[in-house]
């Protein structure tokens, strides 16, 4: 294999994951359906009082996003582990941290971005005010990279384990709490007409922190798991 730079390798990893996701489009739709069902379960459980629902809606969307993203996490490394290409990634001369960053990016593009669009649509259907909707979507946009990055780390830790999905949820959900807190707090404040810059900066800060630190931890986790 002729070398190539780290950047071409990164682009290849990202392109390969996106292409694979595109060829199995049905699997991208499943989490979206799950997300929609989860969001629609809450009105059924709470009752059709419109005002209560509108207050709770951003929080419901956030929790549904967290759960839906957890469901897609095992796929980040599972297929590559099954066909052995994960070992090749680990053996490649390029920095593994960069390559796993691309895997996380692919997960965000295929697992999180569609959720944001759908979440925004659902909220608009339920009649959320524009300002709150914008705060919710911006919060999701800034916060969801953290979810993908931490999720990729947990996915690397549990790669190839039986019962991995449940274990993944157990590992990731506690770590998702800061993002959930700042994201829902932004939407709540926006509903009251309070500025939400503070939450947005905090979410962006968390994203940058996760972007800088988790790839190294994910690479270490992969090496630990592959032995």
């Amino acid at each position, binding site marked *: 294999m002729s070398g190539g730079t780290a950047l071409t390798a990164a682009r290849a990893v990202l392109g390969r994951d996106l292409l694979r996701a595109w060829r199995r489009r049905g699997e991208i739709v499943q989490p979206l359906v799950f997300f929609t069902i989860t969001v629609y379960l809450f009105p059924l459980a709470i009752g059709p009082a419109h005002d209560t629902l509108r207050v709770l809606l951003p929080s419901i969307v956030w929790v549904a996003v967290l759960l839906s993203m957890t469901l897609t996490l095992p796929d980040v490394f599972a297929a590559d582990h099954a066909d052995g290409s994960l070992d090749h990634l680990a053996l490649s001369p390029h920095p593994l941290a960069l390559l796993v960053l691309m895997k996380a990016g692919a997960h965000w593009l295929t697992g999180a971005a569609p959720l944001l669009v759908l979440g925004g649509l659902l909220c608009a259907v339920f009649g959320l005010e524009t300002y709150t909707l914008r705060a919710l979507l911006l919060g999701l946009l800034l916060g969801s990279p953290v979810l993908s990055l931490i999720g990729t780390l947990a996915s690397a*830790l549990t790669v190839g*384990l039986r019962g991995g999905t449940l274990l993944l949820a*157990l590992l990731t959900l*506690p770590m998702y709490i*800061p993002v959930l*807190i700042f994201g829902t707090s932004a939407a709540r404040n926006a509903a009251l007409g309070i500025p939400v810059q503070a939450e947005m900066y905090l979410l962006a800060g968390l994203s940058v922190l996760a972007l800088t630190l988790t790839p190294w931890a994910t690479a270490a*986790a992969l090496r*630990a798991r592959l032995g």
Partner: protein
Amino acid sequence: MFERFHKFASPPHFHAFARMLSPWLFGVSALLFAAGLFGGLVYAPADYQQGESFRIIYIHVPSAWLSMFVYMVMASAGAVGLIWKVKMGDIVARACAPLGASFTFLALATGSLWGKPMWGTWWVWDARLTSELILLFLYLGYMALQSAIEDRRAAARAGAVLAIVGVVNIPIIHYSVEWWSTLHQGATITKLDRPSMDISMLIPLLGMTLAFKTLFAAVLLVRTRCEILEFEQHTNWVRELATGPEVR
């Protein structure tokens, strides 16, 4: 110096060392518990506001402190095992987790018992309670990961990565939850300021804290010995320990 460290970090030596030390630690811990409990339950005066029920502090606060301390021990031991490939680091980290989870649970349970008469409810969505609960989930996740991976070396390395990530995450979780809501009283004992607690109540508390710490150390050594034996079950020295010296 380095050679001595290596000798100390080899499982057979650590096993012998732990066997020698742990009875002493249990003894010291028992004495401290006797003194601390006497001081806390008999000697210390009743609180002017909370009456006798404040005395649960002598269990609650030491276990809450330990719940965080044990996590640091676990993560540090895991890091030693991961970075320098010291087997004892892996073993100690693994032995720490259930202890840390127990102390965390104890802190939550006693806090809940204390909250009922004081706040009028078993549970409030307060920052410290919530982050303590999340800490319990982190311990449980660590233990679940450890038990899911069959190969012990691989389990130790994966666990170490998780524990180190947890160390970065715990302050973030703590402050985010603090921002989210707080009802719990502020810190009573800090280094920079005079403690806002009477000395007759403080001394038993410090005694109980030391008692908990030594108990943790003693139990940790016992658990570590068990883990060493399981880790090394196929080696000659463990076989000799179990059956007596082999006759050749």
